[in-house]
């Protein structure tokens, strides 16, 4: 789990997040807003983009690695590989396009299939473009009940106004961190303390 790159960053915990969802729903927009506080107006289909930076998660310095994947069907074939490397997923749809919402189910199934051996996969359902309320096609209730059905959180965001952007990323990182911690406990039978020593040991063992 320790990052292999950058000496000064190698000791930091690394959380790998993958952006999933149909084309044009705003995965890249969310990522760029989170990473660089900028909103990109024009649409340029993604193939696969990598981002990684240091963030402070609940007082602890960690690294977030974001893989922004392609929503376009043309690239569907390469998704499996990407999904395998992810630790947490933001399942994004656009509230202005119902089809993108129905597509989330398929994406979720693909994730579950690829990560079949893991029990609970950190995942958030994200309804983006909340600033375009007048063009809403997916009622909040519909999305929320689906998320409940899957046992995950539903959050509405806007890459344009930055509403809830930080929240979805940080909430997902918290889930990833919690999962890693519980896995550690299970595997090592060790008490995972908050002190530095045990933290380091854990890193080495992994």
């Amino acid at each position, binding site marked *: 789990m320790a990052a292999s790159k950058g000496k000064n960053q190698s000791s930091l915990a690394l959380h790998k997040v993958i952006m999933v969802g149909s084309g044009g729903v705003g995965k890249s927009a969310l990522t760029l807003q989170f990473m660089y506080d900028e909103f990109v107006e024009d649409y340029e289909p993604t193939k696969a*983009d990598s981002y990684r930076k240091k963030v402070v998660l609940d007082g602890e310095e960690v690294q977030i690695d974001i893989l922004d994947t392609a929503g376009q069907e043309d690239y569907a074939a390469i998704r499996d590989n990407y999904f395998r490397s992810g630790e947490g997923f933001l399942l994004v749809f656009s509230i202005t396009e119902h089809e993108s919402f129905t597509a989330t189910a398929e994406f979720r199934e693909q994730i579950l299939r690829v990560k079949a051996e893991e029990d609970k996969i950190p995942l958030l359902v994200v309804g983006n473009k909340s600033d375009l309320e007048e063009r809403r096609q997916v009622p909040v209730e519909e999305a929320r009940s689906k998320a409940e059905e899957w046992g995950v959180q539903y959050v509405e965001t806007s890459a344009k106004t930055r509403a809830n952007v930080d929240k979805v990323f940080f909430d997902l990182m918290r889930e990833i961190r919690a999962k890693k911690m519980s896995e550690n406990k299970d595997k090592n039978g060790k008490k995972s303390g908050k002190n530095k020593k045990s933290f380091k040991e854990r890193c080495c063992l992994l």
Partner: protein
Amino acid sequence: MSRARQPPLVTGISPNEGISWTKVTIRGENLGTGPTDLIGLTICGHNCLLTAEWMSASKIVCRVGQAKNDKGDIIVTTKSGGRGTSTVSFKLLKPEKIGILDQSAVWVDEMNYYDMRTDRNKGIPPLSLRPANPLGIEIDKGRFPQKDLETLFPGMSADFTSENFSAAWYLIENHSTTRFVAVLKMSVVNLKKQANKKNEGSLAYVKGGLSTFFEAQDALSAIHQKLEADGTEKVEGSMTQKLENVLNRASNTADALFQEVLGRKDKADSTRNALNVLQRFKFLFNLPLNIERNIQKGDYDVVINDYEKAKSLFGKTEVQVFKKCTSLLHSSMLDLDSDVRPSPIGHLSQTASLKRGSSFQSGRNDAWRYKAPQQVVFVEKLTKLVVSQLPNFWKLWISYVNGSLFSEKMIQEVMHSLEKLIRGALLPFSLKEGESRQYGGWEMKSELSGQWLTHVIQTVRLCSESLTALEIPNDMLQIIQDLILDLRVRCIIVTLQHTAEDIKRLAEKEDWVVDNEGLTSLVFQQQKIQEDVCQLSIGILQVFIDCLEQLSTKPDGDIDTSQTIKFVYFQKHLLIVSMESLKELDQRLFEMYIESKADPIVGSLEPGIYAGYFDWKDCLVPAGVRNYLKEALVNIIAVHAEARLEICALRDTVAIYLTPESNSSFKQALEALPQLSSGADKKQIFLYL
């Protein structure tokens, strides 16, 4: 540490993988304060700075080069932050193989595809294309025992690839429980869909199995060749004949199929070639314009570079258009030339610009440009200034045509200062004490040579011509005319002085040679040098006399009769002086010659004469002499004769330009000579003999 000092950090790459020349967007922090701050960019160890486009301190767009490593960091280096790091990496992919019929935006080396058909796409057997479940509805088997079905449909089969396929059997076997209306209808739709797909698929199938077809054709032609070699007769309908037909048809079809593609390729090739050529031509045709622009901007280096490039590209062209273009170029370079050079109103003077043009061509322009003495440059600049500025004043004056004294004075003042400044530079002695302090001040190492003076005269003349063209009244320009006259006089004086000095220096040089014993006589004994020196000195005199003659005999022009007379007088005086000095020289030469030659003869006799304490006093009057005395005397006579010959030769050579007066002096010299040798002495000598 201040924020600007922090090293660049790349935190994002889009996309994170790709083949060479993929356009990537790099994002991060401190990626530079501007395009010029960005001094390095490597992706996977390959320098991408060339294609890098700096967008902001957090964004750079570039193209990945032909990287060495497969996966690597993105390193940004800036002046302000130094060498950076990256948290993300780029993965370079091997370019995907592109099929021969695929469209591609990048250039693909076709060599790699040559063997494609032998190792790839072995072809999918057609049968593998059949769907496992053609109806697309759930299969539930086994309700009906196979035996019953076989008896029900004898000789039939449930296998839909077999020839005697029975649809009923298949349905009973696989879908016996399916409810008709609801599901089978759907299955019909599915079947139709698949049929359509198959039609579409045939093309895909052909494409996929292309190599198989190639192989088949190769095999067939091989067989055909074999059969022909075996001598199987070419009977109508024979196997060979049939094979040949098949082959021909196959290749015809293939040709037809590929004609379009190959045509496109040819077109693409020729377009590419044409584009290349066009690019080159564009450079040439745009050059005159570009040069003009750059000249305006003052980028002379760029201009000269471009010009050299064009010259090397098209210098030897035979094509008319290019010739025209290069000559256009050349003329614009000449314009530039006259602009750059310290030349006044160069464009006004056709000849001047032509001269400069040729000097530019011959590559000696630098000498031209930098060797002009300061004063010359000064005058050129000054006149240029006046010519460019005075018209404005003049127009001003014309607009106040009523003749306010003030404006007229203005023009006069300009004229005055022009005149005084030039005088200060070239004729400082013609200025009054106070003026020379104001206008002079030139450090004169040596006076300007006549050549430069003529150049200056030309410059000033052009200036006055262009001023006259403005219709400035002559009385205002009079001082300029006076100046020109003074300059001309000065020029003549200087030229003459310099020539005299040059000749003097020639003698000095010869003196230096004389000092080295033996060499002098050698130099002068060499026939060639002697002749050359002779010719040259004659030439100088000749030209000078011609010149004087022309000046004095010129009937018209601004030289009045008194001047003509003056000139004639001057000429006469000059000739008389020169003749007198010539005579003197003659005499001196003669004496020196006789002395130097006779001395050794007499010298060899004298010691012998006085050896026996001989004294003329107590000696008898000699009645005869010995042979050796005779010989000595003969020798002395020979010397005289030689001198005489010499004098004659001298007269002959200078005869062309000598006047009667000088001729008479020669006669005198000749007369003097025989007197000496054929007088009393000679009689005496003969007596002795």
